[in-house]
């Protein structure tokens, strides 16, 4: 009871700080701008060109937009708290390290949910255009949410390592690139169990199958594992201040 409370209070403050700065709006607008442009207007690839009433393009573009969007959200979470010293303020209140880290995670997660909520009109309008697979679309959204959660875990961890937001941002991107490409490339370039291992670590295949409408528990476990690992490592790093 108390646990969830402190977490929620911290998340709430973080969100409102976010919306009181321009950053939140810039990020939201660019997220909606990018995904909207490619879904509707880009020419080859958009909904009209392909003459298919689905959100495949949206999911693919959203994956990439979130890839940049989320590190920009998470970079300040812990780094700024450490730089300004306010972390001392928080952690000497009736708050545990874990509650603080969870609160930070939650604020970023809610931020992403808000961004995704703004894309519901895409869903509503595309579904009017023709034969529409609602199941696949919901599964696609689930995929985006899981993917975001994993990105937030990575971004949070990057933010716990430094007190410089830019460093946190770049580090999160770097880790993201590992999960998006490098593990995939390594998997192709190796054989046997090593290839298997890198293939499992590679994010692309897990996301592809969910966004195609196939919900496999292995994929769900994959994204949740990255999330929990990110949160757990951040908590560990924060507790090491001492």
């Amino acid at each position, binding site marked *: 009871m*108390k646990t969830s*409370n*402190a977490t929620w*209070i*911290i998340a709430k*403050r973080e969100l409102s*700080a976010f919306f*009181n*700065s321009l950053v939140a709006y810039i990020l939201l607008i660019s997220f909606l701008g990018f995904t909207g442009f490619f879904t509707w207007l880009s020419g080859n690839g958009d909904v009209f060109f392909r003459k298919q009433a689905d959100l495949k393009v949206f999911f693919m573009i959203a994956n990439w937009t979130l890839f940049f969007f989320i590190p920009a959200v998470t970079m300040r979470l812990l780094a700024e708290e450490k730089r*300004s*010293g*306010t972390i*001392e*303020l*928080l*952690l*000497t*209140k*009736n*708050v*545990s390290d874990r509650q603080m880290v969870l609160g930070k995670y939650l604020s970023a997660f809610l931020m992403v949910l808000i961004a995704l909520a703004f894309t519901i009109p895409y869903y509503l309008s595309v579904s009017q255009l023709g034969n529409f697979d609602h199941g696949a679309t919901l599964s696609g959204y689930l995929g985006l949410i899981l993917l975001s959660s994993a990105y937030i875990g990575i971004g949070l961890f990057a933010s716990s390592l430094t007190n410089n937001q830019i460093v946190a941002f770049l580090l999160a991107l770097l880790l993201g690139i590992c999960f998006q490409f490098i593990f995939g490339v390594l998997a192709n370039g190796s054989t046997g169990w090593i290839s298997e291992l890198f293939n499992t670590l590679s994010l692309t295949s897990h996301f592809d199958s969910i966004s195609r409408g196939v919900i496999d528990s292995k994929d769900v476990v994959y994204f949740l594992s990255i999330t929990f690992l990110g949160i757990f490592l951040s908590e560990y790093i924060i507790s090491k*201040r*001492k």
Partner: protein
Amino acid sequence: MNIRIENLTKSYGDQKAVDSISFEVKTGEVLGFLGPNGAGKSTTMKMITHYLNIDAGNITIDGRSVRNTDMKKHIGYLPEHNPLYEDMPVIDYLRFVAELQGVDAVKLDDRVKDMVRLCGLNDEKHKKINELSKGYRQRVGLAQAMIHDPEILILDEPTTGLDPNQIVEIRELIRTLGNSKTVILSTHILPEVEATCDRILIINKGKIVADGTAETLRKTASGSQVLRVKIQAPSQDEVKESVSQLAGVALVEKVEGSENRLEIQSHVDQNVNEAIFRLCVDKNWVLTEMVPFETKLEDIFRDLTMN
């Protein structure tokens, strides 16, 4: 609540910032924490508030270790650099802290109002914290430390940046709170310690070098009494000569730049007031002034920390 610190040690790398210190603070006591820069005051406070881990030793509050996260709710803490969320309005910030400290939702508004009044923040309460002057920031720091009416207050240099009026008010407030709570405050302003603290703890290079009231510190520091006297007599040299020969007098010196004044240091535990008085009567001199000279806290502090 009583705080008990036993053999507390903390190292940064191979530097011992706090080196096996032990002391106790009881409810109703205000402890003044003194020491030169880098002595380990802030480090000790950060361990009491459990921001920093304890390397060795123990800190207990009413017998429970501060390693238990839930002990933090009994403590109000003002960190030394007074970090604050710069982009929050004062009032929102205080509400945030109150919520976090578990202040009842019903009492929350009242509590925030009380703190705004107590710390003189009424005219500034809707400003963002980064718009405040240094003194007002400090007041916000104090307000947030006290907002949940904690039983223990840990204040790291609470009066830095305050104006003289506010300093008087805050000291008064600390004194009042100190009657029912346990307060530890650090400061570099020595008169402040005498004005607000029941007890003084001086640390130097991580070790305790003095612990006691201002009075006991003075006694142990000097031991002997120093008197300042002014005697009107035909010959000052004769006065000096005769006084030096009195039993119990250790040293007599003329006070520079002041006619007819002598500084007389007695041997330990010897009272020479009476002898001086009788001497003057015998010789028909006029004794116009005789004041015991208090060792200044500054001098004690220097003695203890300059080697």
